[in-house]
């Protein structure tokens, strides 16, 4: 009986805060915010928003960088899968890409920023012996005007996510059989994949792609670290308005949050239209029978994508590690002029609090998410219901609605309930984002498990609870642990939810790293970014390593 309630509980834990938060943002956006003397509905906030300098360009930058990163990530991940399907590289990709999923966006962005800047590590490695520079060139790479660096940083993180999503979607279609038939008819490998597998896979990864698009269009922390600054992308612009010294700016800020919501909705709409257009345009190509050669382009692309993602992640983490050990490091030296352990010894104490907050919140949010997701899945099993595609959309709501659009309102709601600033509020806000990923990571392996074991146990008189605990869970220990690691990583990476729900009182490694990233001391940023990246990685390695050892 209780189990039947779990899906409803899950939806409630999820949609209520989002809805309440949206309401809390919509009201000020239309002029209602009594604390600031806004007691009548009006369009003044919208007008005030439209008068903000640089708003038009900010929207343009957002659209350009958001679509650029999503397109690049989508095209690359598709090319990767098409070119390497069923090869050894493809099987290896799971192990190479998954850890990158665990690295928080902020850590990747901070590493990328120092790697690529004109006075950054790459430049230092080749200066002056190759470049002849005495001073770093005055060119804009990081924080560039049109957000290309930001798009690059986002794509680095999104490629692994989309590849993994595609992989799990491949389990649901008979990809190998289809490919075998196509190849026996003389189609080139990549062409065969694009013509037979892709049309079946795309509907399965449509939601993840939308989530990536929504995220790219509305991310705040990466925009702060890599994005343009004058004007910044819309989400960072709105965040800046929310924290503007003139409190009257809360009104246009709320209107801006609504604009952000509209932008994401429109972005997804445009993508959907493009899907329809592409499917119509290529329908002919699908059935025309052109076999395609053994095009090496896809393979080159695949390898370079893998190389770039891995290289950037490894070099980015390495450079932050090097900085954390530097005492001073002047341009153009390739390595610090003086080394020290001071940065670590001095900050170990300060790290302790955010470290434990991160761990506790991550474990609590992941634990809750696991309970809810397992409850939902077990409910499916026992009552022979299958979560509909529509229900899946509900799950994606927190990933599709821009954070900036409802977190301010959510903060007001939390304050009203008197629970803001507590760990509980932070855990709850993290749960919104952890739960969908845990569900995504666990649903497929759970549904494709071999039902015969459970049925056999039931036939032997085992009650459902025991079947769940003694048969299903041990069978699925590996995916459960993997889902937990993904959930933990998602929690570690949360920036805005922590800031808003935690009332600034709950400092995590991510909030500290982002705060520090605007404030300079790169050696200290190095310490925080390194720990921030290392923590989810360790959890991931533990999740992968533990059951393996047990099996032996």
């Amino acid at each position, binding site marked *: 009986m209780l189990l039947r309630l779990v899906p409803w509980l899950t939806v409630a834990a999820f949609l209520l805060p989002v809805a309440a938060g949206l309401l809390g943002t919509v009201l000020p956006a239309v002029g209602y915010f009594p*604390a*600031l003397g806004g007691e009548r509905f009006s369009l003044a906030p919208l007008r005030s928003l439209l008068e*903000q*300098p*640089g708003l*038009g*360009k*900010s929207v343009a930058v957002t659209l350009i960088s958001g679509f650029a990163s999503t397109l690049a990530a989508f095209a690359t991940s598709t090319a990767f899968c098409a070119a390497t399907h069923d090869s050894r590289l493809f099987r290896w990709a799971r192990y190479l890409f998954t850890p990158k999923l665990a690295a928080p966006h902020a850590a990747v962005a901070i590493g990328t920023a120092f790697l690529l*800047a*004109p*006075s950054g590590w790459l430049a230092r490695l080749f200066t002056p012996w190759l470049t002849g520079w005495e*001073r*770093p060139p*005055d060119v*804009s790479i990081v*924080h*560039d*005007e049109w957000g290309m660096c930001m798009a690059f940083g986002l794509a680095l993180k999104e490629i692994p996510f989309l590849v993994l999503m595609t992989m799990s979607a491949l389990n649901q279609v008979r990809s190998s059989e289809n490919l075998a038939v196509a190849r026996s008819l003389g189609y080139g490998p990549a062409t065969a994949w694009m013509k037979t597998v892709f049309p079946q896979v795309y509907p399965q990864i449509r939601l993840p792609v939308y989530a990536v698009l929504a995220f790219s269009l509305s991310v705040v922390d990466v925009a702060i670290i890599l994005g*343009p*600054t*004058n*004007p910044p992308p819309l989400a960072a612009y709105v965040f800046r308005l*929310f*924290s*503007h*010294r*003139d*409190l009257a700016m*809360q009104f246009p800020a709320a209107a801006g949050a609504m604009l952000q919501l509209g932008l994401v909705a429109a972005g997804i709409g445009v993508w959907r239209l493009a899907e329809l257009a592409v499917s119509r345009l290529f329908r002919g190509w699908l059935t025309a029978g052109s076999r395609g050669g053994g095009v090496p382009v896809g393979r080159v692309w695949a390898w370079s994508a893998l190389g770039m993602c891995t290289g950037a992640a490894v070099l980015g983490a390495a450079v932050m590690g090097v900085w954390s050990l*530097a*005492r*001073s490091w*002047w*341009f*153009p030296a390739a390595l610090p002029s*003086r080394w020290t352990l001071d940065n670590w010894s*001095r900050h170990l104490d*300060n790290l302790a609090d955010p470290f434990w907050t991160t761990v506790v919140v991550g474990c609590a949010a992941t634990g809750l998410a696991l309970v809810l997701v397992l409850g939902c899945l077990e409910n499916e099993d026992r009552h022979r219901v299958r979560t509909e595609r529509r229900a899946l959309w509900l799950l994606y709501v927190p990933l599709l609605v821009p954070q900036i659009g409802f977190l*301010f309102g959510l*903060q*007001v709601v939390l*304050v*009203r309930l*008197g629970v*803001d*600033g507590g760990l509980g509020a932070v855990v709850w806000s993290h749960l919104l984002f952890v739960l969908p990923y845990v569900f995504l990571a666990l649903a497929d392996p759970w549904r494709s498990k071999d039902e015969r074991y459970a049925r056999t146990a039931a036939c032997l008189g085992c009650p459902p609870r025991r079947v769940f605990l003694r048969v299903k869970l041990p069978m699925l220990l590996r995916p459960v642990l993997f889902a937990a690691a993904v959930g933990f990583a998602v929690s570690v990476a949360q920036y805005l939810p922590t*800031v808003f729900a935690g*009332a*600034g*009182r709950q*400092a995590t490694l991510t909030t*500290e790293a982002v*705060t*520090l990233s*605007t*404030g*300079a*001391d*790169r050696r*200290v940023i190095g310490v925080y970014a390194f720990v921030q990246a290392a923590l989810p990685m360790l959890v991931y390695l533990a999740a992968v390593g533990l059951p393996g050892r047990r099996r032996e």
Partner: protein
Amino acid sequence: MNRLLAACFCLVLCLAAGDSRAAEPWGKVVEQADGQTVYWNAWAGSEATNEYIQWVADEVENRFGITLKHVKVANLAESVSRVLAEKSAGKTDDGSVDLLWINGENFLAMKQNDLLYGPFAERLPNYELTNADDWPTLTEDFTVPTEGYEAPWGMAQIVFLHDTRRLPDPPRSMNELLAWAKKNPGRFTHPQVSNFMGSTFLKQALYELAEDPEVLQEPATDSNFQRVTEPLWAWYGKLRPHLWRDGEQFPENAPAQHQLLADAEVDVSISFHPPEASNLIQNGLLPPTVRTYVLDGGTIGNTHFLAIPFNSSSKEAAMVTANFLLSPEAQARKQDPRVWGDLTVLDLDGLSDEQRKVFHELPKGAATLSREELGDPLPEPHPSWMNRIVEEWGRRYSG
């Protein structure tokens, strides 16, 4: 004469201490503060600052049983809007912020919206040591009367940083700066104008370029703003194309610009703390060849303050902390360039010989200017100038 003054001051102090009406409540305040937790929202972009605050936390814990937590903020306006969100939700006690490091437009915003507790400054016993009555910047925050809603904490004055290895003879006026920038494109920038250091740079330029700087002490009006700031925009319009990244990008704040100076991306940086450069050199964050200078016409100076939100549930502990921050011991440590290098608000003449000696014995640091070299600070313009300059800059140069 000075000695006489000091003697009078001591007498006043004794009288104040003997006044049971003032002394008893403070004793009670300290008593109530024991066991309270103070969430201190303070800008956290500098390691020196953070470590100093950590030291304060340890001290007030040991001495008064106060748990002090540093809420690290990138921009204090975040905290202002949080207190506002709480007020809007009807949360009139147990607010999430107990103490603020604040000044200027944030103070004005909180004061105008009745978000502050007070007046409390004169209740702090150590407030007497500041001799605020004779020192107008301690009771006026950007020309706005503090009326006891803020306690002074530290003094600041603009200095410019240059790397003598690349730029031995830096430009010492805004017009010289323009001429130099034309010859050396891409070697100068300023922090983003939405950051207080960036807008302060523009205010500093306005001081030199405005026909009559006196008018900046009054609120800006629709009728005079364009006229007064016209020379500023004419000058800036010529400067901007020669800035770092063609004036399209700006460092987030002053520490970010120090980083650019260290990375050799620019040749000049700007700071509000005269001894900061020495501190950064000593910590390995700036090359040892960096020195500081002020402009020929003088530079803007101001005071930064401590304030308590109206809905703090630890007002007593916040006051005890503020009082400790005003103690000669805490102030001397703050001024030490090896620790932080933020100038004291105390009137040294009013201290005991022993206390004064501590201040006099502080090392100056290689890149720190003396009191004489710094010269008399120019007073901050009314906040309305800053708000309008930021707006106008945005209109002209964003997007």
